[in-house]
């Protein structure tokens, strides 16, 4: 199912320690005109599913109105939320339920203390209230956990918790390093990532619910991500078509070469064609890079590769204690290999 991932807003009602720095503290909401443009054109390009993210998408002042537009335009949809608003808004979502494929709740610890340490006191309890509503009202839901050094020991408990609570699935994802996660030692080293990935793959054998990892885990396939296969189209809150929702604004807006164009300035079809062309170029360069002989093991973490490729992690050089710091690409090497 080809999907469009839409960052509805960069505002959020939480302030998590592992969030992309400086990204979710502003006041930007995606304009309705952009939504209308997407709804008018996306199906013709093979996209029939819209996934809303943020910030927290429920914070968008016209969130419910947007969902109704999506529903009436005949798209299936889902959204990722921290769950803090869910008990207030679910009543408005119930009439749209037959096109709602699921709500993904961010839950960053099986234990309340662990989750609340990362996301704020009381946030775990509000997620539990949200899933209680889902169970009673038959709204399908899943959990998403970002793996940090603090919650890493709880991946097994997360699988147990998600299964018992009636979740339809569980997704784990690696943390994108930021200055704040670096200072707090939240980032796992490449070796630690591989270890926790092994644990997660084993969990899949023991639990009846789907357990997956978000793109970013170690894989020798050079192009494993949906956006690189044109199966995912990402739009940020400014209307920018971006390579990936993970990259948007990451690194304090230092490198913005991941932005394809802005939907306020071009038709959807033009943005689509630009992304196709951009992907073609990326494929070519990455293949050349590997053929060039200095492809390192850390390059098989695809998000890490793109963070370097799009110059999102140069700041890490100032943090030599971060396990990824020594692996940041040298710009001179990048020019020689890719230029």
């Amino acid at each position, binding site marked *: 199912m080809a999907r469009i991932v839409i960052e509805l807003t960069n505002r959020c009602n939480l302030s998590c320690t592992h969030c992309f720095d400086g990204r979710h503290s502003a006041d930007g909401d995606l304009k309705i005109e952009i939504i209308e443009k997407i709804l008018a054109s996306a199906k013709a390009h093979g996209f029939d599913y819209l996934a809303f993210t943020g910030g927290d998408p429920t914070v968008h002042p016209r969130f419910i109105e947007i969902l109704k537009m999506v529903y009436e335009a005949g798209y299936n949809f889902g959204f990722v939320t921290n769950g803090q608003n869910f*008990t207030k808004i679910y*009543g408005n979502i119930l009439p749209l339920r037959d096109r709602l494929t699921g709500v993904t709740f961010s839950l960053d610890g099986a234990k*309340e203390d662990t989750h609340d340490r990362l996301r704020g006191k009381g946030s775990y*309890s509000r997620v*539990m*209230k949200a*899933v*209680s*509503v889902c*169970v*009673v009202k038959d709204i399908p839901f899943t959990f998403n956990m970002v793996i940090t050094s603090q919650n890493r020991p709880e991946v097994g408990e997360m699988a147990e*918790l998600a299964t*018992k*609570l*009636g979740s339809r699935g569980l997704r784990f994802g690696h943390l994108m390093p930021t200055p704040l996660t670096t200072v707090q030692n939240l980032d796992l080293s490449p070796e630690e990532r591989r270890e926790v990935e092994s644990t997660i793959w084993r969990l899949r054998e023991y639990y009846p619910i789907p357990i997956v990892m978000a793109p970013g885990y170690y894989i020798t396939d050079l192009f494993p991500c949906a956006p690189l296969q044109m199966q995912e189209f990402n739009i940020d809150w400014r209307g920018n078509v971006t390579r990936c929702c993970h990259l948007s604004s990451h690194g304090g807006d230092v490198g913005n070469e991941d932005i394809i164009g802005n939907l306020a300035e071009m038709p959807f079809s033009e943005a689509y064609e630009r992304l196709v062309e951009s992907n073609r170029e990326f494929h070519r360069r990455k293949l050349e890079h590997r053929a060039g002989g200095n492809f390192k093991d850390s390059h098989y973490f695809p998000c890490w590769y793109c963070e370097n490729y799009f110059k999102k992690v140069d700041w890490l050089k100032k943090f030599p204690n971060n396990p990824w710091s020594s692996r940041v690409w040298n710009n001179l090497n990048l020019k020689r290999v890719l230029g």
Partner: protein
Amino acid sequence: MLGRNQKVKLDSNVVLTELENKEAVLLHLGTKMYYSLNETGLRIWQMLSLGLTLGEISERLQDEFDVTPAKVQESVNCLIGELITEKLVEVVDE
């Protein structure tokens, strides 16, 4: 049989979620079990959370709902019994 002066304490592992239709869901974080409460059950839970005795709860329910004292007493005792069985509340020593 619980007396009218008896108090019970809510288990701190239980999360209450009120729904729009005056009903509610209880989730026990220890057992991961969900329980639904109807309107009367929710009122009893709310009064338990205020630390009222079972007698005080019965009196208030008689004022709020048009039912006989015997029926109220039966409803309160029945629900409290179930809540105790499911370890959602525990009896407080008098």
